[in-house]
């Protein structure tokens, strides 16, 4: 189905942040662009505020559902600690990280039983892991401006669609959101996407 160069992408976040929605939007956008897509998700027990991530594989004729370790060229991080968690396993040397800067600490950290991680530490770790670039976005602030905290994930999709190496076009992402989002939340979603993309 596709003549495109294969491209892998990971979305990392916390259950409830909308990573499933984000990966569904990307899958539908790929379909609209005629690019084959495969997405492996975290469901079920992992959702109750647990760590979740989606492995998205674009443009392969055939492929398994899982991305080989240390080969992923781009990680979309909906939460910094989860971004680092996946980057340590999957980020290719020189890979790109697009990061929502709003830290959501795990319960054990909130309770003071695990050390907390701040953004500078996470940035340093990502650099140490060989990240080629780290783009930081305060997606919550952008989402609040666009109408509500719930669309921070869509802000991040907007940022993603403006990344040079990301193989899907902004227009395809817009069309996909029009197909995927509920009618009532569509204006907010589209505005958040545009703001994220700097439009």
């Amino acid at each position, binding site marked *: 189905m596709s003549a495109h160069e294969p491209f892998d992408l990971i979305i990392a976040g916390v259950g409830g942040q909308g990573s499933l929605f984000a990966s569904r939007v990307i899958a539908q956008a790929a379909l609209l662009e005629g690019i084959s897509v*495969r997405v492996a998700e975290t469901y079920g027990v992992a959702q109750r*505020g647990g760590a979740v991530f989606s492995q998205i594989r674009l443009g392969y004729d055939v492929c*398994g559902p899982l991305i*080989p370790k240390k080969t992923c060229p781009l990680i979309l991080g909906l939460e910094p600690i989860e971004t680092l968690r996946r980057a340590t396993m999957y980020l290719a040397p020189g890979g790109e990280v697009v990061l929502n800067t709003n830290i959501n600490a795990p319960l054990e950290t909130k309770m003071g039983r695990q050390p907390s991680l701040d953004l500078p530490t996470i940035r340093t770790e990502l650099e140490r892991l060989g990240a080629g670039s780290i783009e930081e976005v305060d997606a919550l602030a952008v989402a609040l401006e666009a109408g509500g905290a719930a669309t921070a994930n869509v802000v991040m999709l907007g940022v993603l669609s403006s990344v040079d190496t990301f193989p899907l076009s902004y227009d395809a992402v817009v069309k996909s959101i029009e197909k995927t989002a509920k009618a009532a939340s569509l204006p907010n979603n589209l505005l958040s996407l545009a703001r994220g993309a700097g439009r």
Partner: protein
Amino acid sequence: MKAGDEVLQGRAGTTACLLGNLAIVRGALEAGVQFVSGYPGTPASEIGDTFARIASEADVLFEYSVNEKIAVEIAFAASQAGARSLCSMKHVGLSYAGDPISTIPYVGVGGGMVIVSAGDPSAITSPNEQDQRHYSSFLFYPVFDPATPEDAKNMTRYAFDFSERTRLPVLLRPTTRVCHTSGMVRLGQLPQAKNALGFEKDPNAYVPIPANVQRMRRELSARWDLAEQLLGESDFFSHTGDGKHGIVAGGVPYAYLDQVIRELGLESDVSVLKVGAYPIPESVLSEFLASVESVLVVEELTPFIEDTVTLSAYRNRVQIPILGKRTGHFPEAFEYSPELVEDAVRNYLQLGARAKRTLDVPELPPRPPVLCAGCSHRTSFYLTRKVFGKKTVYCNDIGCYTLGYGEVLDSCDTVLCMGSSITQASGIARMTGERAVAYIGDSTFFHSGLPALVNAVQADDAVTVVILNNYVTGMTGFQPSPTTTPHFNIEDAVKGLGVHTVLSANPFEEDLALDVLKQARGGTGVNVVVFNAPCVVNETKLGTRMDRPAYEVDQVLCNECSLCVRLIGCPAIFIEDGRYVIDQELCDGCDLCASVCNRGAIHALAPVSPVK
């Protein structure tokens, strides 16, 4: 269009990106499925959820059954009445249905019958990993083993007709990485006509009394042979490539293998047999074995293909190396990864190791799932432990409330399987002479807690069964439970089972809840405490949630004693620069933190109505 609506609306000939579970739904629709049942369980839940949504539009009768045994029985009955029927569950659910499934092949199906039982290598969301492929040799179930969502759709579609021709029920065994992977699926035609319905009486054919079973058993062998023959003519065993190096692969590992072979440019140098179903026809195996000089078997869980290949080689007097789990070329347990398969293939073909990519993993705080802010289970656990103390044994069960595990709530000393909390509490109380507590949710109670409670009553065990009724099957995605409907009142059901002391309370009414718990603790024999409080997440989804004010910590009164954090483990409370703070976005206003605070430092941001 909502996610997944293309399962019904997608046009034939187009390609959709479908979640594996939705691909199974589409395959069943293309085959003209008429009846669907199931019990939710990750990773199979979206099959039932999707049918629940589209059933009337798709002209399918659907039910979430009370448990898997009943789901299988009613799907079989529908099949006996002529319908094409499907029944979905996870692997452990199929074990629960062990009694009916063992006899269905003997009696034989009418309309095609497909049981989908999702496997979970690595036990990502399960209490064990198990290999349902053994049901093929064990109980006469042809088993289909998809590698991708597309396979899952095609196999499901094929399985119904195949089931009618062999009169055998068919097992589809997708694993987590098929169920929860979205992939490209080419859609086929939805049928114009479906099976005619009706039950024709024929007790000789339908009643497996010993006089009939002898005949049924002989016929079963003939039908099994037909199944093997039909599979031999099917597309589910593809042989690609060439050369003396043979590889046999089945399920998701085939997808990894396929990619590895292409990336290494070995498409024509290696002879690959893809196994998509069981029994693997002997003709397929003997032909393959005759064409290669060695075999590497790539499969997850038990060495099922490997042993079948080894046996076939022995029968055919083929003496070649057969490598796999038994020879240490693959690990015995857990799901495979693309790297694992690549390493094994490189080793097998002596290609040299791949470039090492060292994993340098910094220490990161773990993020396990937790009970939501405002969850009634947290309050129920906290209050029960306050009354029963930390020495009491708390037997827990399968559901969100298993998250009572851990040192904060410390409310989960044992778990085994659905409904076992009551039985484990019985056994432990009988042997120790101490009253034990069982926690069980509403859906799990009706699933398999009922007979366990009867068992405890007839033995007069010293157990307190705390039923956590939140009116929904929460963990698997808010499927209905019997108490979602107006037909059931747990208190009446429990009284009807012979329990004399049945106490009930809203756990958020603390004084009343503590009072019933004290009565239960001081009682004799079996008593039951029913804690009724709707799931807060489901209430929000349904729009029935009452607005409750969030809470805050008065920083002047707070003496940083940490009780609110140490005792209840709520995700909305955290420590920031040494101060105790409540996240007002997350806080659901359940009041538990305020009630554990000795200093009265936690209070609602607005007046609270007396009862939630």
